[in-house]
């Protein structure tokens, strides 16, 4: 451990001393010590599996069964370690709030948001109905959900991800606990929602003087929001101190790796970003797509929801094109149309100059060879029952003639080696691989038909920051060496900036701006693009 000068800290609200946690006899955390002062946001950062979430759960007393914890956790001077579950649950909610990654699971879908927050107040503080309602309104106002502007009668499914997370924060802070533990509260959110939620946490600290432990893997979130940070690696705190000092001069290589991951250098490309445009392999021309809306009355029928409004986009040979936008902007609808999973209401998708949208039967199958996809969730995109060989070879039956078993095995082995895995991995099953390895397998599957374009749908957002950089390097290499084109769909601007040659910005089903990545990012022409960019935390901007 390497404590830096850390003077004039406020008196500690929360003090964790030599915390040890073992699960099923295996030590997972050792010698974890932290202090959190009033009105402070402490960052807890690390790669996946470093023990940062486990530390948060240990403080909350929410460890899985068969785990042991020792050391001390002083909350306002009171040790939480020896408390029984009953005593702890009184502390949680009252003095210790918590917010998790996925807000939908924290909310009851059957209760309106006002009732939801009020219920927490009634349960923990035994407040009367009126008092609880007042507290709920106050808590929701603190997170920017004012009763005067937005109805508190709305239900969780009517809210955006960022609003839901703010309701979850309101629930956790309705009784103004001394300490709030936020475990990856913005990881599931797009940039704009992330900025709202983080802003709301900062406001809470300022308004109420509570202390927040912010657990994240993202150094740029740490940089923009915390005063002090603790870096975790393999169940230990390897470095802690003032955020700026640590980010400027990391002492440990693991800290340096996290900082590099947040900065996300552009992988080296053979073609410069200013290279001459290549002939398009994928053209999306004037595509319109509608979804039917749920009937609310017998008459009139509801107008369809326009998910794609005259969208046009081009991907050149060997080019990596980024498509960015918030959740709900129509990115995923576009993907479904261009993969011919959904038929558009208008417009065409052309592959190597040939109309793919109207292709049916054998012609559609032949053309499918040229467009393959990598999906968002590395855990959901493989049939768990199938071997890697069978999974990677699945698109093989698009080839004409169908390759025989020996030929298929050879192709799979080649594809796996191409993405940095071993040919012998073909015999294993998906559950034996990590998230990053699975995305490599997904890329191998997408490459097996030697397509012209591979569409990647948020393909990196479920991955650890360190793995992310490796996959980006792989994509850059494939684009150069194999002359593959990629359409890279993401809400993560940092990643798109690092990988895309050109970028399209999408809002409410429309392309509002496009151009070479660096020129769009450095001098956005559209106000929305500028707002999107401003919402993204940048390490360099903070440290400059």
């Amino acid at each position: 451990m390497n404590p830096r000068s850390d003077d004039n800290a406020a008196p500690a609200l929360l003090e964790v001393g030599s915390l040890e946690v073992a699960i099923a006899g295996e030590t997972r955390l050792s010698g974890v010590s932290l202090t959190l002062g009033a009105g402070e946001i402490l960052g807890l950062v690390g790669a996946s599996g470093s023990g940062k979430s486990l530390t948060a759960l240990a403080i909350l007393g929410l460890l899985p069964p068969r785990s042991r914890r020792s050391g001390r956790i002083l909350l306002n001077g009171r040790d939480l370690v020896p408390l029984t579950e009953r005593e702890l649950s009184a502390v949680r909610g009252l003095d210790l709030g918590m917010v998790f990654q996925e807000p939908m699971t924290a909310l009851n879908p059957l209760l309106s948001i006002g009732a939801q927050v009020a219920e927490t107040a009634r349960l923990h503080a035994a407040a009367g109905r009126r008092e609880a309602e007042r507290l709920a309104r106050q808590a929701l106002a603190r997170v920017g959900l004012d009763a005067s502007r937005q109805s508190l009668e709305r239900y969780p499914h009517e809210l955006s991800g960022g609003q839901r997370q703010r309701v979850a924060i309101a629930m956790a802070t309705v009784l103004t606990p001394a300490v709030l533990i936020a475990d990856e509260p913005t990881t599931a959110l797009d940039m704009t929602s992330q900025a709202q939620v983080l802003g709301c946490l900062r406001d809470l600290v300022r308004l109420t003087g509570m202390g927040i432990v912010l657990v994240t893997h993202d150094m740029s979130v740490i940089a923009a929001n915390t005063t002090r940070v603790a870096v975790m690696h393999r169940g230990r705190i390897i470095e802690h101190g003032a955020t700026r000092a640590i980010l400027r001069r990391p002492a440990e290589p693991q800290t340096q790796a996290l900082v590099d991951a947040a900065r996300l250098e552009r992988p080296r490309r053979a073609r410069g970003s200013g290279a001459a445009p290549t002939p398009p392999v994928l053209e999306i021309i004037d595509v319109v797509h509608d979804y039917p809306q749920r009937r609310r009355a017998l008459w009139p029928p509801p107008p369809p929801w326009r998910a794609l409004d005259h969208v046009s986009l081009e991907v050149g040979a060997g080019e990596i094109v980024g498509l960015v936008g918030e959740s709900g902007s129509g990115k995923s609808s576009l993907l479904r149309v261009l993969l011919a999973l959904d038929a558009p209401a208008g417009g065409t998708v052309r592959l190597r100059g040939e109309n793919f949208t109207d292709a049916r039967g054998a012609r559609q199958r032949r053309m499918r060879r040229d467009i393959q996809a990598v999906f968002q969730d590395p855990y959901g995109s493989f049939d768990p029952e199938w071997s890697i060989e069978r999974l990677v070879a699945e698109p093989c039956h698009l080839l004409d003639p169908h390759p025989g078993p020996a030929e298929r095995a050879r192709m799979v082995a080649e594809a796996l080696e191409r993405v940095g895995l071993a040919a012998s991995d073909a015999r294993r099953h998906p559950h034996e691989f990590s998230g990053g390895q699975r995305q490599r397998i997904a890329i191998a599957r997408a490459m097996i038909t030697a397509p012209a374009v591979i569409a990647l749908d948020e393909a990196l957002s479920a991955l650890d920051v360190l793995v992310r950089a490796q996959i980006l390097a792989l994509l850059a290499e494939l684009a150069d060496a194999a002359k593959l084109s990629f359409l890279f769909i993401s809400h993560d601007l940092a990643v798109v900036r690092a990988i895309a040659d050109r970028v399209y910005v999408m809002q409410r089903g429309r392309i509002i701006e496009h151009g070479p990545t660096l020129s769009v990012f450095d001098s956005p022409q559209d106000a929305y693009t500028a707002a999107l960019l401003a919402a993204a935390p940048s390490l360099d901007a903070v440290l400059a």
Partner: protein
Amino acid sequence: MTSRQHGSTFVLGAVLTGLFVAMALVALVWTPYDPTALAIAAKLQPPSSQHWFGTDQLGRDVLSMIMAGAKASVGVAALSVLIGFAAGVPAGLAAAARPGFLDEIVMRANDVLFAFPALLSAILLAAAFGPGAVDAIVAIGLFNVPVFARVTRAAALALWVRDFSAAARVAGKGALAISWEHILPNARVLLAVQVTIQMSVGVTAEAGLAYLGLGVQPPTPSWGRMLGDAQTLTALAPTLAVFPGLAVALFVLGLNLLGAALKPRRER
């Protein structure tokens, strides 16, 4: 439930179920006595070394009747599950693969079938064709169809939205191929659980129908009718009701334990 309890649930369920299935198989070729042979002189004997479970009011060996009754019980339940599975699973897969018109047709047809309880259809069939084992099988089988269709459809709908189904479509696979290669294998645990549940429903339904005289006809032995016969003799020979009752209860218990043990502890 810890994994240890899980294991013992499975063992107990498998042993009980296996016992009755084995009993039915053995009864195909051998029983201690002829279960239909009358011996009025030896009627209503208590359990003894000759007749382990005693004899009934007509002097038949109760153990032999229980074994022969297992044949009817296992046979009717298994065949009716087969009917339900063979019709319901493809219907459910088709409904999930083609949301909209086909889905509506299949599910509304299911609602119609579901509206008739097995007992009611059995009485209907018995009135039309005369009571017998085939009526019982068809009636319980028809009752099983919508159950399997619904379970399959629900499981398949959840699997269709998974990314691997989209990946298979991108790989050019059609709805039939995806249903067969991806959906069915991933739903098999759920279907296996449903098979055990419907088996146990079938066993009780068979016993119920036979009790009412709508199932297997005399002289073929059946647990349900043994219970019916024993009812009039409870004061005279109370043990007569015990053995067929225990047989039904233990077989159903075994099947349910097996189903509980097979149930996935957490969806993947």
